[in-house]
């Protein structure tokens, strides 16, 4: 991809395979995901920039590092691992990941938030976008859905499928999140991987100012999770987290894995970095151009 293509507001056709790769191998993927997030949001004229940009590295490793088993051409394949985006407002990063995996046409990203789109403002299962396992957007519900899926896989169907779920950190204020985690460890769901996007930001400000949810690590541990804290923008560290999950499942530890990923909201675009004001705003045209320019060197 040349620099003009990278700076372009248009979507390109590049896709990436899902395979074991070295840490450096994730950077071009995460960067293309970030560019697509900017391209979608500037077209939509509304939506969430901060969370999606900040979690793009997590998604790159999860979808493109061989951790989640899926078939881009058949996202209904019954052996697939499933991902639930409990923080539904972060939909653009999931949509960009699925597009860059080849699950649906990349140019369709241009329809984000438009009438009748498969890329609803918050994931809508009724629109049948390949890879969307459930509707979400009411915070705190997705993680319980994921626990239900993991129970079906492990306790009833007795297969080795994996269920991944990402929550925000503000989202942890919903008490039902902890009900879900309690049941994940009660039912010994070592096939369940919970990722927390710990950017310390939410709509009204920093997480401890809005309602303190810390200490997160000790809470998750005391709820029975195997907790691993990783730098959310360091691919080797993210891989360490997902590898630990795979080991937990393979060894049958009976513990759900909780990856606490330390991230910065808006990471990758310097004027958005670590600013909670970017939680729910799209870039203007000028800001999008500046963001794509910054993201074009990779």
């Amino acid at each position, binding site marked *: 991809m040349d620099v003009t293509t990278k700076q372009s507001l248009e979507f390109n056709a590049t896709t990436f395979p899902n395979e074991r790769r070295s840490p450096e191998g994730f950077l071009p993927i995460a960067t293309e995901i970030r560019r697509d997030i900017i391209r979608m949001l500037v077209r*939509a*004229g*509304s*939506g969430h920039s901060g969370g999606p940009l900040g979690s793009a590295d997590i998604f790159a490793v999860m979808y493109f590092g061989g951790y989640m088993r899926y078939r881009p051409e058949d996202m209904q394949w019954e052996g697939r691992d499933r991902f639930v985006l409990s923080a*539904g407002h972060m939909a653009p990063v999931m949509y960009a990941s699925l597009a860059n995996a080849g699950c649906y046409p990349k140019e369709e990203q241009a329809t984000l*938030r*438009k*009438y*009748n*789109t498969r*890329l*609803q*403002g*918050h994931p*809508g299962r*009724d*629109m049948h976008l390949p890879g969307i396992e459930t*509707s*979400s*957007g*009411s*915070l*705190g519900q997705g993680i319980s859905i994921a626990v239900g899926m993991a129970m079906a896989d492990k306790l009833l169907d007795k297969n080795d499928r994996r269920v991944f779920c990402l929550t925000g950190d*503000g*989202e942890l*204020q*919903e*008490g039902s999140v902890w009900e879900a985690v309690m049941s994940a460890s009660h039912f010994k769901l070592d096939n369940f991987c919970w990722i927390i996007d710990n950017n310390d930001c*939410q*709509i*009204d400000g920093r997480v401890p*100012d*809005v*309602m303190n*949810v810390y200490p997160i690590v000790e809470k998750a541990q005391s709820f029975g999770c195997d907790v691993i804290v990783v730098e959310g923008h360091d691919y080797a560290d993210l891989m360490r987290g997902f590898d630990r999950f795979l080991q937990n499942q393979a060894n049958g530890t009976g513990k759900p894995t909780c990856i606490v990923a330390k991230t910065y909201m808006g990471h990758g675009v310097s004027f958005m970095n670590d600013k909670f004001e970017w939680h729910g705003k799209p870039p203007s045209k000028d800001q999008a151009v500046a963001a794509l320019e910054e993201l074009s060197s990779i």
Partner: protein
Amino acid sequence: MELLGQKPTRFGFGDGLVVLGERHSNVVVLGGDITGSVMTSLFKDKFPDRFFSIGIAEQNATTIAAGLALSGKIPFFASYGAFCALRNADQLRISVAYNEANVKIGGGHAGISVGPDGATHQVLEEVAFLRTLPHMTMIVPADYEEAKKATIAMGEMVGPAYIRFGRSPVPMFTTPDTPFELGKANVIKDGNDVALIASGALVWEAILASQELAKKGISARVINVHTIKPFDFATVTAAARECGAIVTAEEHQVHAGLGGAVAECTAKNAPVPIEFVGVKDSFGGSGEPEELMVKFGLTWKEIYASALVAMERRDKGSSGVRAIKDVPSYA
């Protein structure tokens, strides 16, 4: 009825709260991590000591509000209606309504006019739920001024109350002098051929429909039911008797909201043909607000067409009873 500009009803809620804060030292506000969008930030800036951020925890906020109310405070909790009417439904039912706790809820971003956020955020069912709760007062203001008056009124009455307001700008047509009394529907245009009974943003659409009907020589009565509960049975029954045909219009499921209340009232007191304008038993979806109002059939055009149908059914006699083959699967 004159168009005085456009403003979102949520601004009326925010401004009303500030007035209440000035008048009553026991008014307190709870935030649910969207204080800017639902305008409680205005109160927070003015009265920081009486504002408490509860975070993203609507069930907790609702029940904390009940505890504050049982301690003599007048707590307001506001969030998106999707999350502060239904996520916390049990808390509203037992801790608030059954307790008759003096809790006030502001449900913002209601209806499909939220736009691009999509179905999860477009609450279209809460009027149905709230109007079945004993002791609850349920208000759906039609414009900015009315939202402001309603907010003040709900703060100054005693008992649980809920106000529904929207995100997008809507036409303003009431003034500070327009009468507003909780539980008393406003007849904003007289007429005897058909009654257009509306709430929220659909009141303005009903006014537009009445103007189109007038061009055909049809005089429509336009009624703004800003208080869904307690319901104004007298005004609606009189409209049924005097007009003999009714159209209801609301930015809500056609089931069990304002249309349901009107149907219950008239079936008992004065049965007449009714046509229902609303979202027809479906979830919303992403799109621009005006576009969605057209796609989901929530404009004056549907009210106009429904008025003709209701009158035709009346004029055919036998109360416009439909042939079984013409009975639709929804209202």
